[in-house]
């Protein structure tokens, strides 16, 4: 408490824009936050809501086709300084939904195709979540954990297998949702270039 000066600004130097690889058909809100030094790639028809945070300071971030990243979701949040990871990417497959306030930590983290990361859920560094999984709200996936395909994680870590076989239907519904969002969210990819 000897320091007299209190900085209001975030500690990371402002103005450092990460290199981006955007598809021309994505929708990204003006107030999304993209920071870091590694490349951020967003593939076709994905939607990034306002105030979503993509931080590539630790490693590259790849968002697949037709993903929806909701407001306040955080991709590539750095977990303190305890676990030093040299390469710390975050990869989202296609048709992934990252709900409001969910956090996916950096560190070779992979979210498989068609997975839903629920409201306020947290995926630890290096976790590998399989395809078509459902992480219900406030779920915590520990660092380095492997979640098999079609797993539903609910109620404080209970697990079961999703046998509905509704993946195809879900993807069609998501495509419709993206169509609507594209009209509603004013997109401004040029701002991040």
């Amino acid at each position, binding site marked *: 408490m000897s320091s007299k000066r*209190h900085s209001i600004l975030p500690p990371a130097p402002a103005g450092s824009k990460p290199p981006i690889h955007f598809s021309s058909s994505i929708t990204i809100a003006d*107030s999304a936050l993209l920071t870091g030094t590694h490349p951020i790639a967003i593939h076709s028809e994905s939607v990034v809501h*306002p*105030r979503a945070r993509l931080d590539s300071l630790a490693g590259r971030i790849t968002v697949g086709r037709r993903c929806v990243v909701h*407001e*306040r979701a955080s991709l590539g949040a750095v977990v303190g300084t305890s676990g030093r990871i040299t390469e710390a990417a975050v990869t989202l497959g296609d048709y992934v939904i990252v709900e*409001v*306030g969910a956090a996916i930590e950096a560190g070779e983290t992979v979210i498989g195709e068609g997975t839903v990361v*629920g*409201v*306020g859920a947290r995926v630890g560094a290096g976790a590998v979540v399989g395809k078509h999984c459902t992480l*219900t*709200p*406030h779920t915590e996936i520990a660092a380095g954990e492997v979640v098999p395909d079609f797993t539903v994680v*609910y*109620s*404080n870590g209970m697990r079961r297998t999703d046998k509905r076989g509704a993946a195809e239907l879900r993807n069609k*519904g998501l495509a*419709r*949702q993206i*169509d*609507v969002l594209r*009209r*509603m*969210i004013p997109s401004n990819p040029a701002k991040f270039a």
Partner: protein
Amino acid sequence: MSSRRPPRGEYIETDTGNKVARKATLVGTQNIMLGGKTVIQPEVMIRGDLIRTIQASSQSASGAAPNSTAVSIGRYCFLSRGCCLRPPGRLYKGAFTYMPLRIGDHVFVGAGSVVQAATVGSHVHIGAKVAVGEFAIIKDYVRILDGTVVPPNMVIPSFSIVAGQPARLIGEVPEGGHEAFELRDIYKTVGNNPQPAPS
């Protein structure tokens, strides 16, 4: 210390008595209706831009002006720091649409909660870190404890207390307990010239 105080008030106070923090994020403000005397704390996010895209058949037939309200909030509501209100969305007649989120009077939303309900009644207390799923219907005088996950489409009857992940009914609001839902006093304790809470 005086230099750290913001030169303008922290809140914007409207004629109808709403106190909206300057640091709140309101997207699509033209589609957000505030009933009056509502407190919106800093870092609150309200998604007014997610309006319904399909009008009800009775409305479109009569040719009335489309009602584009996305979020409507009643009187004396209190939205704590970091909470998020967003309209629920679903497939309806083969097309995707968002539906309006209606919130009654004297509704308290705790810090860090995410509300995607269809309807929240009056005198409802939602705790901190609660996730209310899409199209949940919460009736009047309901208390939702901290950390609850209300699943999508759940209907919570009046005078119930719910908790857990997923939410379960754990009790009822006791006789005469409904006075604790009044938010008039807490309304006075925030704003640009807050008054101490009456003891």
